[in-house]
């Protein structure tokens, strides 16, 4: 034990005990358990797609276009004879990638900006928050579409567009929390033992302000997945032949009457993914809010 650093000990402590009540609270929340299961399934699909998918998602077979579900092709085939199931499985990669990465970037930007605004206060706070308000005024989807069009196709440009607008909510949340936390006695106590401004900001104020951000992040992942699907549906985003749920939905939509599954399957996946992250966010919010904890027993 003595050989461990305090941080290691601390980390061990958190991993041993600190998270347990939280995990228990989440698991009590039935919807969030459903959300977690769906997220896990989609995650496994995304990570192991080459092993799970029965066919190469990009391999065309023009003798077998728009086939109904069969033994060989469980969900049927698309308009150029590619296996739909494989394409849906590979599509999860795009969705998860965009959802997680763009939310991570947006969260980081938001935390940094919100932290500075809340901690410095005064004129800096005012300027930063007015800029944030300005960003919030942009119509989200239109801006993303414009960005995607300007930057050209490609999944990374979608991520840039989403995170460039998505940070505003996080900045506001963090700022509000920081305003609250920085007045607490332990922050003054940290100042009284001679800690520097930055250390107090990152070690004492930030960790105590994060709870609502975690909730928001979970819901934002769902929103980002939806945004990516929307842009793909509108014809921007991933480059062909990469499979994306939004893109499948759009192409399948044309053949809705002949092979309904072509658009229903990817559409269902989008719905499930967004719902799952919202459920998880709900569960996290209840678990992190001590006032709500225990009510659902």
């Amino acid at each position: 034990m003595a050989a461990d650093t305090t941080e290691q000990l601390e980390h061990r402590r958190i991993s041993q005990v600190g998270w347990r009540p939280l995990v228990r609270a989440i698991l009590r929340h039935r919807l969030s358990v459903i959300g977690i299961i769906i997220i896990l399934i989609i995650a496994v699909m995304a990570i192991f797609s080459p092993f799970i998918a029965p066919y190469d998602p990009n391999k065309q077979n023009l003798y077998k276009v728009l086939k109904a579900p069969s033994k060989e092709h469980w969900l049927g085939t698309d308009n150029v004879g590619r296996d739909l199931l494989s394409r849906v499985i590979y599509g999860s990669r795009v969705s998860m990638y965009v959802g997680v990465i763009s939310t991570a970037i947006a969260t980081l930007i938001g935390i940094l900006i919100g932290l500075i605004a809340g901690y410095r206060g005064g004129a800096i706070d005012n300027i930063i928050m007015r800029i944030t308000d300005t960003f919030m005024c942009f119509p989200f989807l239109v801006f993303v579409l414009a960005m995607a069009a300007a930057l050209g196709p490609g999944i990374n440009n979608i991520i840039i567009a989403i995170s460039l607008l998505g940070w505003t909510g996080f900045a506001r949340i963090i700022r509000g929390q920081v305003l609250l936390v920085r007045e607490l006695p332990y922050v003054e106590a940290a100042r009284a033992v001679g800690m520097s401004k930055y250390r107090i900001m990152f070690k004492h104020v930030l960790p105590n302000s994060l709870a609502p951000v975690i909730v928001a992040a979970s819901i934002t992942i769902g929103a980002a997945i939806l945004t990516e699907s929307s842009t793909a549906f509108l014809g921007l985003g991933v480059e062909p032949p990469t499979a994306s749920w939004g893109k499948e939905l759009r192409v399948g939509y044309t053949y809705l009457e002949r092979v309904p599954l072509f658009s229903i399957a990817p559409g269902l996946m989008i719905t499930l993914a967004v719902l799952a992250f919202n459920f998880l966010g709900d569960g996290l919010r209840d678990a992190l809010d001590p006032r709500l904890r225990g009510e659902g027993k």
Partner: protein
Amino acid sequence: MLEVKNLKTYFRTDDGVVKAVDDISFDLYEGEILGLVGESGCGKSVSALSLMRLIPDPPGRIVGGEVIFEGQDLLQINEEEMRKVRGNRIAMIFQEPMTSLNPVLTVGFQISEPLRWHRNMEPEVAWKESVRLLGLVQIPDAERRLLAYPHQFSGGMRQRAMVAMGLGCTPKLIIADEPTTALDVTIQAQLLDLMKKLTQDFGTALIIITHNLGVIARYADRVNVMYAGRIVEKATARDLYAHPRHPYTIGLMASVPRLDQAMKEKLVPIEGQPPDLINLPAGCAFHPRCRYIVERCREEAPELNPIADNHFVACWVNVREKE
């Protein structure tokens, strides 16, 4: 060791300037325990925070005076140097043990943090030192307790942990701002005895800020009584209790229940309200509530004047004669 001269801390508010600390001077010897007494809002805490330069600015500001600590004027040095003083040469213990520890960090981390910061200790060394410190403040099973989070500690234990944190860098001065207000009486006594013993062992000076006269009587060597941002009486604890001279001090003493008092005797409260710090009464700030008022009190504020060895009173009336 510590000499405070003409310290003034004002707060600008929308309604006017609040002179929270108005021209106070006092000194402190090595290893001495000084009590700072007064009612809520009289400037006790603000003067303590001023010594540490922890007044939130805006709205507050130290507008004048000197705080000479070990030959150095703390009001002149820059923030960087001041940070090396805080928690290192002067430690502070706050009045809210329940909220003065960060809930997301272990107690051990928080006790060892100043050690690593000021003493450049390696984490393992600081951790071992924290074990020793926690033992010093009589928390059993210190090694395991360091891994606990503040919410797993009782109020008394948290305050002990705060004391341990304060003692960590063996400061020359500890400022305890109502260290025991939130604790029950038995724990109060334990903790104060402990603090007294530890400060004696380390030769640390201690400023206890409190409104509890019993605490002062038992632990302090000297006492400053504050009223409306000023020191109105300054004396050794023994003298102050034997011969309180300022009408406010006399009022305070009379309003505290005593065990040797006859049961039917009533406590005598100080009439009236504490003054509005924005519109202080002219002359002596206490005069509207004073029982011994004379004409001069309304016009001129009295200075602290010596009336005996180590006994200073700011009053126009020699109350003793009048009694």
